[in-house]
């Protein structure tokens, strides 16, 4: 029995190889999924710094009552651009980038199914971001209408500046890129799996990318059509969303949230995938309830399409609609809870190794549960009516998107950095990064739950000196600066470790999925030989031929 077999199908026409001596051109002209993945991550990190800077300006303005650090107009631009940047240019491209890098490796493929389309997707995201940020240089600056751009505020008579136009154009370009990468991922995962890699043996990260990609190709057209209508309204005088001319502002809300709610799952399902890879490896146990994690993801994907109007309880859609959307939204807690239980069951009785990836993964579970619980609370119509558009909502979605997605992304970056770069990130700096992130994050956002319940509305540029509001906001602001320091420490860790980090072996964490079977970093062609896949943990089976996961599996 041979231990390794050559089963990587070579493309009919060989892909252009990288040349070492062409400098930046080897990156700009690259269609290699690993380079494109890394470029996604670098670009997202730049936007992470920009979006973070916007957050600091927001928090500085809110640090004291009646503050005049920012003008109201600039404040509105800051929260609009902060939200848009973090969602579309940080979390999404980070997750897509990690997917683009890892999916072909995890399924034992040479590259994505469509390498050129892959490059197109990436560059559309880059140019979309440039288009968005160009609006700062236009007269009266960037969009001021918030990341959901409600009509009629985003329409001509109320927003005469060019901000919302650039905003919609930039997101349209980025969205088309996302659809292309979703299509690419689906075809890659369905057709390029190595022999023996059945759907039941697919790494859970790949499962999550697959479900996310289906969500992307089905919900980004919704927002693409809504953006088109908004642009026609603004540029050609169409009347889709202007009630004064027979249009409907509520229609925009339906369209936006028809996309916007599934978008939340696009931002968090790949994060679930990262957690499902990290937790078993650092608990030294196979994942508990593989089928339930994959199946519940499909359930979340389907349910997420039918719950959008829980963002619209304050509109007055009527009791029947409100009750339906409240109950359907609460249902999502079941498949989400299943995942949490499976992760805890995987850790239970395992030999847990708290390296930095595992620290972030463990903290993810705790922070995400808090965000999930407040989510179930505001799915209830009467509670939502009390706290809607308050800082309670701001706290809720930051627990989901930062405590959830970003914590998982950090877990993933520490976990896969050795594979990406051939160097280990420093564990010592990593622990500093981790603890400052936990302290800074909770300090910033936990107190906002109380501010929200006390009645502080979101998106106000300043507030009166009500009892405790000043001190509570000051605590939140200090937390934001602690968080900023943690990000600087992370960036320093990356910089330092790229030069001086410990050289990474092929499989530094003793993990079991195929990406660890190749060198760190992988060769251009990914694998010389792909190990045989006879179970969910091919590298475990390879190392323990006498004790494989699936003893009766057919040998391919």
């Amino acid at each position, binding site marked *: 029995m041979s231990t390794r077999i050559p089963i990587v199908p070579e493309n009919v026409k060989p892909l252009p190889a990288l040349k070492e001596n062409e400098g930046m051109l080897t990156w700009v002209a690259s269609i290699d999924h690993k380079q494109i993945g890394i470029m996604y991550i670098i670009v997202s990190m730049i936007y992470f710094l920009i979006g973070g800077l916007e957050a600091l300006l927001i928090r500085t303005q809110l640090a004291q009552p009646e503050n005049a650090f920012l003008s109201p107009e600039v404040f509105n631009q800051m929260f609009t651009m902060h939200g848009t940047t973090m969602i579309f240019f940080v979390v999404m491209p980070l997750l897509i980038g990690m997917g683009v890098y890892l999916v072909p490796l995890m399924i034992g493929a040479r590259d994505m*199914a469509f390498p050129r389309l892959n490059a197109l997707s990436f560059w559309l995201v880059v140019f979309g971001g440039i288009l968005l940020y160009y609006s700062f240089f236009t007269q009266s600056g960037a969009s001021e209408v918030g990341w959901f751009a409600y009509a009629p505020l985003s329409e001509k008579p109320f927003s005469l500046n060019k901000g919302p136009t650039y905003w919609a154009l930039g997101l349209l370009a980025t969205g088309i890129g996302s659809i292309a990468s979703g299509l690419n991922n689906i075809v890659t995962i*369905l057709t390029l799996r190595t022999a023996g890699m059945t759907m039941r043996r697919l790494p859970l990260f790949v499962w999550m990318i697959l479900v996310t990609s289906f969500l992307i190709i089905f*919900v980004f*057209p919704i927002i693409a059509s809504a953006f088109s209508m908004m642009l*026609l309204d603004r540029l*050609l*005088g169409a009347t889709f969303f202007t009630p004064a001319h*027979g*249009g*409907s502002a509520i229609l925009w809300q339906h369209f936006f949230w028809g996309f916007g709610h599934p978008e939340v799952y696009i931002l968090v399902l790949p994060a679930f995938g990262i957690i499902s890879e990290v937790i078993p490896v650092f608990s030294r146990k196979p994942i508990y309830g593989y089928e339930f994690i994959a199946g519940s993801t499909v359930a979340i994907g389907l349910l997420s399409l039918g719950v959008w109007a829980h963002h619209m309880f304050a509109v007055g859609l009527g009791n029947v609609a409100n009750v339906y959307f409240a109950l359907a939204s609460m249902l999502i807690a079941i498949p989400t809870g299943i995942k949490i239980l499976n992760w805890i069951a995987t850790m239970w009785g395992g030999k847990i190794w708290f390296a930095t990836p595992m620290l972030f993964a463990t903290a993810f579970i705790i922070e995400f549960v808090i965000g999930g619980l407040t989510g179930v609370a505001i799915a209830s119509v009467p509670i939502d009516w009390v706290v809607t558009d308050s800082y309670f909502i701001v706290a809720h979605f930051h627990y989901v998107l930062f405590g959830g997605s970003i914590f998982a992304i950090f877990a993933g970056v520490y976990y896969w950095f050795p594979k990406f770069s051939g160097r280990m990130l420093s564990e010592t700096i990593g622990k500093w990064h981790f603890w400052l992130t936990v302290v800074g994050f909770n300090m910033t956002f936990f107190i906002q739950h109380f501010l929200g319940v006390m009645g502080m509305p979101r998106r106000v540029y300043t507030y009166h000196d009500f009892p405790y509001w000043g001190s509570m906001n000051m605590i939140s602001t200090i937390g934001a600066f602690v968080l900023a320091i943690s990000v600087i420490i992370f960036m320093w860790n990356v910089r330092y470790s790229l030069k001086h980090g410990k050289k990474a072996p092929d499989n530094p964490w003793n993990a079991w999925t195929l990406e660890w079977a190749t060198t760190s970093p992988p060769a251009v062609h990914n694998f010389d030989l792909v190990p045989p896949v006879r179970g969910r943990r091919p590298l475990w089976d390879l190392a323990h031929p006498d004790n494989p996961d699936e003893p009766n599996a057919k040998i391919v």
Partner: protein
Amino acid sequence: MANNKMLIKFFIASESIFFVMLILAYINFHGSNVEGPNAVNSLNPLRTGIFSLFLLASSLSVWLAGRSLVTKNHFMMKIWILVTIILGAVFIYGQASEWLGLIAQNITISRNVFGSTFFTLTGFHGFHVCVGLLMLSILLGLAMFGDFKGPKSDGVECVSIYWHFVDGVWIVVYSVIYLWAFL
């Protein structure tokens, strides 16, 4: 490889959602312009229906092009692609003249919600037809230089799938805009 056809099918699934949203917007505002121009008092379903037949016929001709590819009849394949381009172009001519007629009566995208939804929906469809014509022309050009000897070609088959999709969308659009107005 089967990858290309799988890609175009998922792409079409994604595009379908885009058109569903445009159609939903049209339906949402259907009947909200009782006075002023609307589908009933401004459109000519018979004239557009006749031009629609050209588009439907082009589905048949692109299918025949595919058959010729399978039987390795290179000459007839080129003829059928050319016929498809001509039929599609006639449809676009019909749509352009309809638009010009409406605009001459000052019925535009900014006139009212009927104008907004009508021009947006038919405009995006017409744009897709034009993209299809462009792709068919590229196919024809490549075929002139000797490509697509058959019996298989992902290029021809994918463009054909896309063209059928564009036709199918038009059947729905025609029914929703023209037939609904006169039922």
